[in-house]
């Protein structure tokens, strides 16, 4: 039979208890720096370990003397750790120690120590069937009662904590410690009775084991990981050590007796050392997979989540991935993902379970604020504890209760709450464990990143799309505007497009200088009178309603050359999101477009105005203007030029000059001259040249050309041709020349006669008849000379308007008869007849001038009927026209139609063979016309070549009022050629 003192069942338990307690104490003590409860529990466990070790030494003592020494050491330790137990339980359950607990505990410890050192606790040891048993002194009993009191108080704290625990895991932890504590307590009670088996150490062992379970399974004091890690490393070490030891033993045995054994062993050691690291890594991997399965699960969960969320664009996919992944790792009855909506709420975007599907939360809700602040999961019971959460409105609380949300996990990114994972109750109503919370926290962090990426992508994408659409719309609007013919329509289109792009309630364009109006408004959108400041209301679409928006959300000025010309206003829809900076940029672009359009309108108007003026100027020019471009191509031809060149209206004048000249009815030499002239001028590069050409055709003309270079900015060589009709001028010049020639001749002839005959009279002795004859000729030539001079003077007076007429009532009958009589002397070959009706009314005329007119006409009739014949003066009355007409007819050579047109102009003479000998200044008929017109009459003629001519003039009757005054004020048209 084995002695009880050698019985392993007696010796082993304290050793095991010591090892277990010291190990656990070390584990807890390692985290003692974190909290008081760790410190107290570590103290308790280490004390337990010490007690167990001392018990072991006591049990292995060879005799009672030595045993009593160990007993005297271990009993105080057992007593002293009881306050530590109490303080641990109070600290762990967050209770309050009783007043004076610390001084009492200190006093207790001091008392125990004092009694123990004085040997007043243990009397002696006895050996029983089961081993040593102590015999106590009397003071021991109150001390042990005190110790029981401490433990009892501790147990009460644990019980209270157990009842108060809301978390399943917490309750189990406490239950384990509570139950575990009963065992050493029961054991120590048994130890008090010497006959009873010393069960305290067994109780201690049980306590250690149960505590280890609580630590491992229910995370007591959060040392489970350390426990697990420690076990894992131990296992890894064992896995690695076993083969190593085996190899060493085998090689040692095999190499025993070999002289080179040291070398062999040395080489073996080197090889084993080299293989240590990879073997350790392999062993660790295997152990990790077994021990840290949860973490492997977590890593796989996160990998799975990442793998599924490959596409950054798919926000919905990412959300649904969460819906798939999370419930698979956390056994929850429901899950929802809340994300911020456009309004100020978090709304459920994906959910499993109908109760969570409708969950929504204000972004200003205390719950959201709490999650944003603390950034850790929140269990639902905490809603009744935190002051921030207690302030939640009933509406939201009821929603949360109805949804059965049990856990809220924030998704935080860049210190902002970007979403909330909401979990329903865990299956079997168990609380969410610490590991699960950690898993969810890490998952939410990753999910936050994934969802944020997807959201960012979507936001950027939509913004990009929006901008692209805006640009396209803007481009289309700009194109439409550029092509619009009606400026106002173009502006209306601009305003409508702006309103559409901005989704505005209305957009108003105000222009202050458009079309000269004081101010004009072009609006798009429905405007009420209230918004219009009481002004007209209605649809301001294009009808120029005055709709100044007093509180426009956007207001962009429109600038013109002279400064601000208006503004573009936009007002957003009521309740809508305010305009963004992008919207403002869009409106600025439209304002720029309006500015450009307005400037274009202004320029177009100015250009049109200038063009109109230019066209009017050019159209009213009497001179023709031809502009030739490079290569002598006609660029421009004004109407006067077209007319002067005899071109019809329909030719395309943008042709080569040569071609144009071919079209014009020019004489060949003129055409060639013109071409040569143009070329010469062009070659002369910048000088001005002149030339004259003749244009034939129905209206022959003489044209004076002035060619001048036109400088251009592009250095193109352009040439301008100014065409001036000088036909009349040249005709006048020719007439003047002719008059000078005729006048010279007319003057020279009588002067020659005067000189000749007077010289003869002076130098020769002539018979009296010859003298009389010569004097008669001299007299006659003098009279002719005087008449010529008179004519010239009359012409001058008529031209200058300085000739005066004295209108009076004149009896034509005697005037005509007398004048006819006086002119008889002009020719003996002619028969002069006057036919004046006796009842011819009197006329209103200047008598002298009338005589001059009749005399001139008679003189011309005689001159231009050299064969003789009858010259008749016929006077008639035209009562309906209130005038008298005097006609002087001859039977002379007649006048051609071409001569008739110019007959009454200055210096015109009929140049025909029949008129060679007929002398005259060409002024007579001009004088007749001028004088008759002064008397408010008219002159005309009828004639045919070879059949004679009849010249008529009319004079108003004396009853017809004159448009001249009695003073004979001149009509302004008299005197003009």
């Amino acid at each position, binding site marked *: 039979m084995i002695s009880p003192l050698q019985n392993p069942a007696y010796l082993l338990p304290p050793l095991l208890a010591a090892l277990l307690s010291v190990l656990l104490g070390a584990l807890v003590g390692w985290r003692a720096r974190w909290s008081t409860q760790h410190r107290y529990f570590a103290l308790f466990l280490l004390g337990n370990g010490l007690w167990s070790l001392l018990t072991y030494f006591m049990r292995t003592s060879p005799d009672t003397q030595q045993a009593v020494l160990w007993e005297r050491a271990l009993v105080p330790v057992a007593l002293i750790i009881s306050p530590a137990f109490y303080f641990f339980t109070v600290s762990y359950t967050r209770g309050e120690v009783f007043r004076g607990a610390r001084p009492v505990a200190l006093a207790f410890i001091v008392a125990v120590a004092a009694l123990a050192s004085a040997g007043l606790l243990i009397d002696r040891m006895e050996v029983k069937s089961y081993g040593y048993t102590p015999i106590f002194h009397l003071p021991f009993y109150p001390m042990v009662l005190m110790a029981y009191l401490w433990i009892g108080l501790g147990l009460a704290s644990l019980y209270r904590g157990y009842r108060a625990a809301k978390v399943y895991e917490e309750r189990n932890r406490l239950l384990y410690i509570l139950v575990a504590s009963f065992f050493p307590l029961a054991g120590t009670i048994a130890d008090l009775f010497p006959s009873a088996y010393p069960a305290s150490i067994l109780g201690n062992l049980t306590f250690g084991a149960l505590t280890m379970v609580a630590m491992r399974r229910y995370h007591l004091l959060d040392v489970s990981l350390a426990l697990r890690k420690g076990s894992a490393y131990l296992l890894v070490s064992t896995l690695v050590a076993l083969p190593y030891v085996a190899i060493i033993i085998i090689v040692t045995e095999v190499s025993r007796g070999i002289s080179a054994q040291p070398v062999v062993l040395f080489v073996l050691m080197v090889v084993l050392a080299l293989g240590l690291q990879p073997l350790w890594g392999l062993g660790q991997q295997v152990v990790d997979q077994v021990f840290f399965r949860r973490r492997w699960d977590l890593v796989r969960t996160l990998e799975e989540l990442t793998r599924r969320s490959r596409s950054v664009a798919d926000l919905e996919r990412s959300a649904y991935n969460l819906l798939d992944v999370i419930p698979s790792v956390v056994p929850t009855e429901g899950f929802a993902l809340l994300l911020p909506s456009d309004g100020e709420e978090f709304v459920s975007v994906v959910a499993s379970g109908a109760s969570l599907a409708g969950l929504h939360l204000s972004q200003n809700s205390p719950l959201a604020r709490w999650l944003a602040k603390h950034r850790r999961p929140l269990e639902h019971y905490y809603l009744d504890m*935190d*002051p921030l959460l207690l302030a939640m409105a009933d509406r939201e609380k009821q929603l949360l209760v109805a949804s059965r949300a049990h856990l809220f996990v924030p998704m935080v990114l860049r210190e902002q709450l970007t979403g909330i994972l909401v979990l329903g109750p865990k299956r079997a109503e168990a609380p969410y464990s610490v590991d699960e919370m950690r898993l969810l926290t890490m998952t939410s962090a990753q999910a936050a990143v994934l969802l944020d990426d997807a959201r960012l992508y979507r936001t950027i994408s939509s913004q990009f799309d929006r901008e692209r659409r805006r640009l396209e719309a803007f481009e289309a609007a700009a194109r439409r505007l550029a092509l619009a013919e009606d400026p106002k329509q173009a502006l209306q289109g601009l305003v409508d497009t702006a309103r559409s792009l901005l989704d505005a309630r209305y957009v108003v364009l105000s222009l202050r200088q458009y079309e000269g109006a004081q101010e004009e408004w072009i609006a798009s959108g429905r405007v009420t009178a209230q918004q219009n400041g009481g002004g007209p209301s209605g649809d301001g679409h294009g009808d120029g309603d005055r709709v100044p928006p007093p509180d426009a959300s956007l207001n962009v000025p429109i600038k013109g050359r002279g400064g601000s010309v208006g503004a573009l206003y936009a007002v957003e829809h009521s309740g809508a999101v305010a305009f963004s900076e992008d919207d403002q940029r869009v409106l600025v672009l439209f304002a720029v477009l309006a500015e450009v359009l307005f400037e274009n309108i202004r320029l177009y108007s100015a250009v049109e105005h200038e063009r109109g003026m230019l066209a009017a100027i050019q159209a009213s020019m009497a001179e023709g203007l031809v502009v030739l471009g490079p290569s002598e191509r006609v660029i421009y031809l004004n109407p006067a030029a077209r007319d002067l060149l005899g071109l019809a209206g329909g030719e395309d004048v943008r042709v080569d000059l040569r071609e144009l000249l071919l079209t014009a009815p020019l004489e060949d030499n003129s055409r060639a001259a013109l071409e040569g002239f143009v070329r010469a001028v062009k070659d002369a590069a910048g000088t001005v040249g002149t030339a004259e050409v003749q244009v034939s055709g129905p209206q022959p003309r003489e044209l004076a050309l002035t060619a001048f270079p036109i400088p251009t900015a592009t250095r193109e060589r352009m040439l301008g041709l100014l065409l001036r009709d000088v036909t009349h001028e040249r005709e006048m010049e020719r007439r003047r020349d002719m008059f000078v020639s005729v006048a010279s001749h007319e003057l020279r002839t009588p002067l020659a006669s005067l000189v000749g005959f007077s010289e003869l009279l002076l130098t020769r002795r002539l018979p009296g008849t010859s003298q009389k004859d010569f004097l008669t000729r001299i007299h006659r030539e003098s009279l002719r000379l005087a008449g010529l001079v008179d004519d010239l003077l009359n012409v001058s007076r008529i031209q200058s308007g300085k000739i005066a007429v004295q209108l009076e009532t004149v009896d034509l009958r005697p005037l005509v008869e007398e004048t006819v009589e006086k002119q008889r002397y002009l020719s003996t070959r002619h028969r002069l007849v006057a036919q004046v009706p006796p009842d011819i009314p009197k006329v209103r005329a200047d008598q002298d001038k009338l005589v001059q007119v009749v005399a001139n006409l008679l003189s011309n009739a005689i001159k231009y009927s050299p064969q003789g014949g009858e010259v008749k003066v016929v006077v008639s009355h035209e009562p309906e026209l209130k005038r008298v007409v005097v006609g002087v007819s001859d039977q002379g050579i007649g006048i051609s139609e071409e001569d008739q047109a110019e007959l009454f102009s200055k210096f015109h003479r009929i140049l025909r063979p029949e008129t060679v000998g007929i002398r005259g200044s060409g002024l007579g008929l001009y004088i007749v016309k001028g004088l008759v017109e002064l008397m408010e009459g008219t002159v005309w003629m009828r004639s045919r070549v070879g059949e004679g001519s009849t010249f008529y003039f009319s004079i108003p009757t004396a009853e017809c009022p004159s448009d001249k005054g009695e003073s004979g004020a001149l009509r302004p048209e008299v005197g003009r050629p």
Partner: protein
Amino acid sequence: MVETDFPEARFFRTLNHAELWQRYCGFLDLSREEFMAIQQYLLLEQIKLVAETPLAKAIMGGSKPSSVEEFRRNVPITSYEDYAPHISDGREDALVEKPHFWCHTAGRGGNFKWIPYTRAAFDRVARYGVAVAMLAAADRREDVRLTPSDRLLVNLAPRPYGSGSLLYHFAEYFPYTPIPPLDAAEDPDFRRRTELAFRLALHQGIDYIFSLSNVLVKIGASFSDQRKRLKFTPDLLAPSVFSRLGLAWLRSKVARRRVLPRDLWGPKGLITFGVDTPIYESELARLWGRVPYQVYGTTEMLISAVQGWNKKGMVFVPDLAFWEFIPEEEWRKAQGNGNHQPATVLMDELEPGKQYELVFTHFHGMPLLRYRIGDVIRVLALEDTNSGVKLPQVMFQARASEIIDLAGLTQVDERTLLQALANAEVKYEDWCARKEYRQGVGYLRLFLELTEPRPAEELERLLEQQLRTMDVDYRDLEGWLEQQRAVAVTLLPRGTFRRFYDEMVSQGATLVHLKPSRINPTQAEVERLLRLAKTADRR
């Protein structure tokens, strides 16, 4: 009913002290930003809740403000007259929901102000009720001494007054033991109620007292009155009473003094109302063994502000109402111009040392919006560094209508006069004061019933001396009045106020009219006092 049927009591079973403290008193640890965030959040919730009701539409002009600024800008400051047509006499059709209960207070003109309380609002009032009890008994943070079934002695006005309604309905939430029982507490006779309460307290003991300060002082003083001896009644033979009296006697002997209330009961907490609480603070602590704990509440808002555990300044509660404050210069402007809408500031704009008139908007579906209650508070400090509370510390100063302005130079209110009387060691039964005019100049007339006779001139001199010491502006007033006294005392014979009370009770007057107003009593009240004084003189 089991404990779990009381919504607040269940937390005492499941939470430890730290957690209980966090739930009930955690609002003291809010930062100003958190406080304002709660205020703004709940205001917007309130607007959403009530905007469609006829009452809110009438007050807000049909608008539905979407921000705090818009609310303050568009909603005018209101008085009870704006609500009376909708909610007077218990009408409910203009409200968002059927009220949990109604309570009222009598207005000056005798028109009751009926205030409906929703269930949601009272849930929070009840929570703060627990907080009050917890804080009243605490000496430090997380010092939780309150337990369900604690005994609470109440001698405040019964239902439907605010205090009675609060305690009556609080019993639905927390299973306290009311002394006297709730049905007995409905007795309108104050004396009878008080006597019953203390008689029961002798049997049962008291954990908390909820009373007016001056009543507790008087009760305590009666213990000190050597002329008063305990009347023997059979009640005294009850074991609980006998042991209580015995222990109290022993304690008093150890302390070498007469028996005080603290010897008999030793309450955990002393919760008091009244502007005179600070004045009687030390006396109450001496008599009852606890520093009194102050709560500021009205019928319109049962609990508005509470002290911290260190019994210093009061802190407004964050989730019962939206608090706005009218600065003094603004309320003066409004006094001069009835059409002036005074501007308000918010909690985070208060300045220490200044007075503000209170304006609040109910939360949780209750009806009052930007309601000007007529109370003036003074800001003591923007935080309490001693206790670590970072919210503004305030005290109740006076009712705006109960401030006497003298020549525009100084203001005297009830608290000031109480302090002056206390400093001058004037022993009085009661008093009231009003402004009168002498040769066109205003002065203070004090009607005083002394318990220890003293000449009126001496009292006037003493009071002026005190006022001069207490109030710098008062010195300017004296200069203004030149040789004339600013305070005139009219002594009333003993028993005048008692006869006033008895006469009003016999006439069936409501509670508020049983005594004349301390400040600015009506002419009728003054005439009644003077008449009763003459009657007392003839006796």
